[in-house]
């Protein structure tokens, strides 16, 4: 992971002239103070522009590149941001020319890759962004969390499973096979009173059918079935006549079925061509479906809150964003409607092709089975011609659909098919009449009827098994996709919940550090319904959501801050630096301190850059973080010269060192001595006279020295013999300091003498190891002494 070493901007936002900001080789943390409108956010803007190629708060307001160049930058002035990351040759520069063209130079490909990776990370938090996530709707929160960890792929995977399964259920071959299966079941019930699901069952039914004839052969398998049929045909006076009657009965049944099939086909064909040809004639609209993926992805880009450009993201042409969003949504809705129509037409086409195949099989059986019946020569010839005609129709239909062209049946097709239908109708009547003319006995009629029933049932069972195989193979896939989809929804939610749990662990802990012993605890992110995520917390022990229900603005801000920090710590892979720009506006003093301690304890190895316009907050940071090696700068605006950066001393001693020889430091020395004495008196529980409120803070140094001496006289008399106390007691300098009305200033070497005295005093009561005071309430066991917190430094102390 990386941190920042150096930032330099020039002619960028508030910085007219080169503004360097050095974090040193130790990539130190930094606090920057600047009054409102002093231009301190220029630093944040520079980092954001360098990494993201945009500055979100500006882009949102339609202030883009033109807002980045300093207003007084000349044509030849380069608006530049240079950033140096930790590591060797890890730097780059981004410039914006006077004609607002951006150019970027990286030291090498590694830096380029690093900056690309940083784009996805959580680096900058501004006050305006803190509660943005909290106010998102549940669905958007879920998407935001999913986006953080790249879960878009999961959503896509789930969608493919669901869409494919839905499409599979609607495929014509499947729905056609189911419909055919139902028809066959109905036909079987009509013929033999029950559904005969397979060949084995058929053989059982066949035995029942032939049972009345008392055959010698019992049907148990295919061989006995064929033998029984031979035996059956041999009953009566003429096997030939029975065979002829059976054949005619079959022919009549086939012709009647064919007539019904052709009627169904004509109806299906009319429905298909009516709907399909409308689409084919609007081919341009259907062709646009190829753009649907592109538009869907484009919509995802322009619909996110972060996209605010009034330009097409593809061609960069100027375009009103709201209008572009409306146009894309309208085009996608139109495409969804066309896709629906196309899917429906495909279903009709598949069903139609299935029907043609069925008719073709029957016609072929007529042409082959009855070619020896001279009385039906015309029917057989027509059947042969009809096969060719149907093949042509089938091929034409497939070709037209694939090419999305208007489909027209072959010339004369409808007339020829209608003529063939009439021929089937006539042949069925004739076959029945011819069978009647054979003069069969009652037994022979029964035999012929049984044979015809067996033949018809056998065909129905064969067709049923075939349809069932198609259904089975489809349903195996459908059930598999359904099961996978349902399981994946569970896996997806579990994966997301794991993420939420991980974030929640840090969010809850961080929040607790900011707000200990308050009525709000157990803060976490949780799934709401199937598509939502929401913050949940215990409020007086009761699980509660959403955050705005009971939390104050300050608590909401805390929640936003800790969520950002948790996400950064968990998910940042490259950036180990954070920019916190004016984020504590609604925090009170104690919560500000707690935030600093949270940063100190949990982000001690991170580089933190804090920008603030609040002096008190800046002083707290100085006081708490100077000892941890932080840098401090103040930024001020110098009118036409733009913003300037100055070092900001972290301690009074640094201030005095900086001002020495240039300005009067008497007041600073007095404040330093008072501060040192206050801290010592506090730690040693030195008793002073009671005073109300602020007056209590305004203790003079001589009062505190006197009371400190008094306490030491009782508790640690040997310590009082230390030279520093007599030096302090007799110091004319101190007398000078404690008198506010004394016009004399402390100057020159006297400053050094006084600073040395203060240092000696501090050294007596502060541990060199832990830097903390020795305290009256930390007694050393078994010794008449007190110690600091680490115990390494002690002073004698009577109890």
């Amino acid at each position, binding site marked *: 992971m990386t941190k920042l070493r150096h930032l330099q901007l020039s002619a960028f936002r508030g910085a007219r002239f080169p503004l360097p900001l050095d974090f040193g080789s130790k990539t130190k943390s930094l606090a920057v103070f600047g009054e409102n409108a002093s231009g301190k956010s220029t630093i944040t803007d520079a980092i954001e522009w360098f990494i993201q190629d945009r500055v979100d708060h500006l882009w949102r307001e339609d202030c883009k590149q033109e807002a980045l160049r300093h207003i007084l930058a000349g044509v030849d002035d380069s608006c530049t941001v240079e950033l140096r990351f930790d590591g060797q040759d890890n730097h780059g520069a981004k410039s914006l020319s006077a004609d607002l063209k951006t150019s970027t130079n990286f030291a090498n490909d590694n830096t380029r890759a690093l900056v690309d990776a940083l784009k996805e990370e959580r680096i900058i938090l501004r006050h305006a962004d803190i509660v943005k996530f909290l106010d998102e709707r549940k669905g958007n929160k879920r998407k935001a969390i999913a986006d953080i*960890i*790249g*879960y*878009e*792929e*999961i959503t896509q*995977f789930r969608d*493919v*499973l669901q*869409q*494919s399964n839905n*499409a*599979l259920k609607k495929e014509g071959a499947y729905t056609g096979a189911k419909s055919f299966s139902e028809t066959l079941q109905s036909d079987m019930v009509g013929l033999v009173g029950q559904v005969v699901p397979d060949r084995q069952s058929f053989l059982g039914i066949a035995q029942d059918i032939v049972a009345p004839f008392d055959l010698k052969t019992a049907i148990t398998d295919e061989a006995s079935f064929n033998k029984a049929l031979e035996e059956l045909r041999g009953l009566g006076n003429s096997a030939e006549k029975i065979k002829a009657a059976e054949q005619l009965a079959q022919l009549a049944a086939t012709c009647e079925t064919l007539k019904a099939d052709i009627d169904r086909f004509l109806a299906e064909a009319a429905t298909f061509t009516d709907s399909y040809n409308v689409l084919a004639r609007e081919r341009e609209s259907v062709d646009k479906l190829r753009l649907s993926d592109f538009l869907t992805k484009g919509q995802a880009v322009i619909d996110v809150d972060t996209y605010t450009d009034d330009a097409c993201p593809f061609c960069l042409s100027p375009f009103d964003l709201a209008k572009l969003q409306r146009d894309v949504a309208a085009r996608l809705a139109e495409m969804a409607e066309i896709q629906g129509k196309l899917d429906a037409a495909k279903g009709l086409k598949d069903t139609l092709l299935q029907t043609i195949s069925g008719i073709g099989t029957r016609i072929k059986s007529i042409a082959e089975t009855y070619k020896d019946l001279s009385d039906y020569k015309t029917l057989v010839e027509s059947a042969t011609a009809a096969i060719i005609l149907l093949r042509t129709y089938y091929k034409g239909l497939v070709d037209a659909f694939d090419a999305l062209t208007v489909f027209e049946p072959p010339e004369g097709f409808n007339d020829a098919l209608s003529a063939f239908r009439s021929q089937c109708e006539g042949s069925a009547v004739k076959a029945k009449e011819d069978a009647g003319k054979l003069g069969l006995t009652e037994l022979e009629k029964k035999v012929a009827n049984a044979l015809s029933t067996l033949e018809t049932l056998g065909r129905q069972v064969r067709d049923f098994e075939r349809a069932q*195989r*198609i259904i089975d*193979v*489809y349903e*195996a*896939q459908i*059930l*598999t*996709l359904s*099961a*996978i989809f349902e*399981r*994946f929804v569970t*896996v*997806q939610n579990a*994966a997301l919940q*794991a*993420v939420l*749990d*991980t974030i929640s*662990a*840090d969010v809850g802990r961080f929040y607790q550090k900011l707000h200990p012993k308050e009525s709000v605890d157990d803060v976490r992110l949780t799934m709401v319904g199937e598509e939502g995520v929401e913050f949940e917390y215990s409020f007086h022990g009761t699980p509660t959501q959403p955050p705005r229900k009971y939390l104050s603005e300050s608590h909401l801000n805390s929640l936003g801050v800790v969520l950002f920090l948790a996400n950064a*710590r*968990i*998910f940042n892979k490259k950036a180990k630096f954070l920019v916190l720009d004016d984020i504590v506006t609604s925090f009170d003093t104690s919560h500000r301190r707690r935030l600093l301690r949270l940063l100190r304890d949990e982000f001690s190895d991170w580089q933190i850059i804090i920008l603030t316009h609040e002096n008190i907050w800046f002083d707290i940071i100085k006081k708490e973080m100077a000892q941890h090696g932080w840098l401090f700068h103040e930024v001020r605006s110098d009118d036409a010269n733009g913003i300037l950066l100055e070092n900001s001393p972290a301690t009074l001693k640094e201030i005095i060192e900086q001002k020495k020889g240039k300005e009067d430091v008497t007041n600073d020395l007095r404040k330093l001595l008072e501060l040192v004495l206050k801290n010592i008196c506090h730690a040693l529980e030195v008793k002073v006279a009671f005073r109300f409120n602020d007056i209590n803070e305004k203790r003079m140094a001589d009062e505190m020295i006197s009371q400190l001496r008094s306490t030491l006289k009782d508790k640690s008399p040997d310590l009082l013999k230390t030279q520093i106390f007599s030096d302090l007691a007799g110091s004319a300098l101190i007398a000078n300091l404690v008198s506010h009305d004394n016009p004399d200033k402390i100057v020159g070497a006297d400053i050094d003498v006084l600073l040395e005295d203060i240092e000696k005093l501090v050294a007596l009561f502060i541990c060199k190891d832990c830097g903390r005071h020795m305290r009256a309430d930390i007694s050393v066991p078994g010794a008449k002494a007190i110690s600091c917190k680490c115990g390494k430094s002690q002073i004698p102390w009577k109890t």
Partner: protein
Amino acid sequence: MTTKNILSAAEVISAFLDEQSQDKDLEQASVSAITKLRSKGKLTRTNLLRQLEEDRKAVLKGDAQQDKG
């Protein structure tokens, strides 16, 4: 807290498909079709439906040959 408990989207899907490939109650040709298309970066509705159609044809062709045999 670290990210060790957090799987990437690719890891979640890969682990899930591995688990499904062990489930004998599922039609494994379909699981395999999804896995292969995903590994090629071609897992779309259209491509999956095409592959499933090929699988169905193969199964039905096999059945038909078995019937003839």
